[in-house]
């Protein structure tokens, strides 16, 4: 009875369903402006209230789930692919390749992530695609180190030596055996990474440098909460709760995975 894993999968499963079924379950179009219903508190007509342009918050949050989850997934996907490639090259070949790659990792790790992301977003205008790529390009370092460590320890095991003995190519050894066996910790790291990516995306959107309105994201719904402080609590509370719950969900999954891997 792996409690963390179950609760995590339940939470994230619900979010994923919501994201996939968005057009079917969303009560309103998230971009529709309704002049008659500006800043309405939660009611039977608008379950989570409306924002300053009369848009239904519940609908925006449902579509926002799509955006936030997919950004998180793809960004971490990019980071994981880079990390697997660089990490296995460094771990398997060693020597100057290893030194070069790890030096690069050290240098990149010196940049405060947020500073780097903001600087690049300033230069290449914010768009959903750019954000996915940028978050991915600043999150691969941890996975690289992880993969390299796993491969270093797996390299000398007997089944790998057996592979070499029968003349398997390096590529086959890396992709067929080393990487699959190293995936455990990588999966844990990637799950936590998705949580982090969602947090980053919402912070960026909140600052106006992420998903641009009218496309909804949990972060950019929160932009208005600053100007409606004390007046419209529903604009602040609900998106934040969604972010919190999603991150908790992924953290639980990671905790559960850790338990399995021992």
């Amino acid at each position, binding site marked *: 009875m792996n409690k963390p894993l179950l609760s995590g999968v339940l939470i994230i499963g619900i979010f994923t369903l919501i994201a996939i079924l968005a057009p079917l379950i969303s009560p309103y179009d998230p971009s529709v402006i309704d002049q008659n219903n500006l800043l309405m508190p939660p009611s039977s007509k608008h379950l989570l209230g409306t924002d300053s342009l009369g848009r239904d918050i519940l609908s925006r949050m449902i579509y926002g789930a799509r955006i936030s989850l997919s950004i998180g997934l793809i960004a971490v996907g990019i980071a994981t692919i880079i990390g697997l490639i660089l990490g296995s090259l460094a771990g398997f070949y060693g020597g100057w390749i290893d030194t070069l790659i790890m*030096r*690069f990792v*050290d*240098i*990149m*790790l*010196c*940049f*405060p*992530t*947020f*500073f*780097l992301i*903001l*600087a*690049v*977003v*300033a*230069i*290449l205008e914010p768009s959903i695609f750019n954000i996915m790529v940028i978050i991915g390009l600043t999150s691969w370092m941890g996975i690289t180190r992880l993969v390299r460590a796993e491969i270093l320890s797996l390299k000398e095991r007997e089944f790998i030596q057996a592979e070499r003995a029968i003349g398997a190519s390096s590529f086959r050894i890396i992709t067929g055996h080393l990487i699959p066996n190293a995936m455990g910790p990588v999966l844990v790291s990637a799950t936590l990474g998705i*949580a982090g990516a969602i*947090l980053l995306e*919402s*912070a960026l959107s*909140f*600052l*106006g*440098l992420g998903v641009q309105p009218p496309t909804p994201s949990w972060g950019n719904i*929160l932009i208005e*909460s*600053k100007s409606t*402080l*004390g007046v419209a*609590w529903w604009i*602040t*509370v609900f*998106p*934040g709760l969604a*972010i*919190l719950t999603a*991150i*908790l969900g992924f*953290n639980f999954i990671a905790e559960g995975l850790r338990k399995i891997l021992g």
Partner: protein
Amino acid sequence: MGIIPLLLGITVISFIIIHLAPGKPTSLQQALNPKVSQEVRLRLEKLYGLDKPLRIQYINWLHKLVKFDFGRSFGDDRPVVDKILERIPVTLTVNILSLLFIIIVAIPLGVKSAVKPNHAFDKFVTIFVFIGFAVPTFWLALLLMNLFGIKLGWLPISGIKSLDFEYFSLGQKIMDYLRHLILPIFVSSLGGLAGISRYMRSSMIEALGQPYIYTARAKGLTENTIIYKHALRNAILPIVTILGLSIPGLLGGSVIFESIFALPGIGRLFYEAVMMRDYPLIMAEVVLGAVLTMLGNLIADISYAYVDPRIRYRKQA
């Protein structure tokens, strides 16, 4: 040591980033004045040395960096160095107070959790830590501002001084600063609080399981002495390292909560620079951030070697 290649690497990557821009850094200035002719544009480029090949530009830029000449801000044409220096005190104050707060609260929390693992207190703290890790800091800031600033009216929600600051006595001025800083400090500490109390807990549990603890108990020492005089001293050693390593997180976080609480620090300066596409300022802060992080790591390494007597004595031997 490995610092020089690291520093060089930082500058190279920063340089590459700034030149990712599809246009040239001068194109923004041109865009603002469409009447600018080709001739003037070429002159601008020559002024900024943009007509030379990239590696020469890099060397020139490096030369200036070493002299701490970060160029002039696009926003108000003041030297970037000045703009950064005048904002450092606020950020420094908030972060140092934040670290102090974390140390004062997280260490006792961790110790108490470790002494009675899995009992009520420990479970409560664990839940608190889990939530602390998952809460988006800017959301928490907004909630607290709503609660303490508006509903209860206890604390101010922006800036570092009140409007009638000039008329306050010294004591009142200090109180005013503190009242403005309470929310920002609390918000920025939350992550570190969660992390460090977790770390103290596992460090203490490990220390309490050491053989010398059995000896201490056999000697008949009181439980308090054992916990605070012996186990704690050993468990606390890595804290210095962790504090040094938390610098990049603090820098990144300061962008968000300085913007929300309207504090005039370097985080907010960076945010303003990004919004205005003030490239010299953005570049300077990116390089600065990386260098500070590097220094933080260095200090963490050195102090760990220094603070742990075992390593110190081994070096002397």
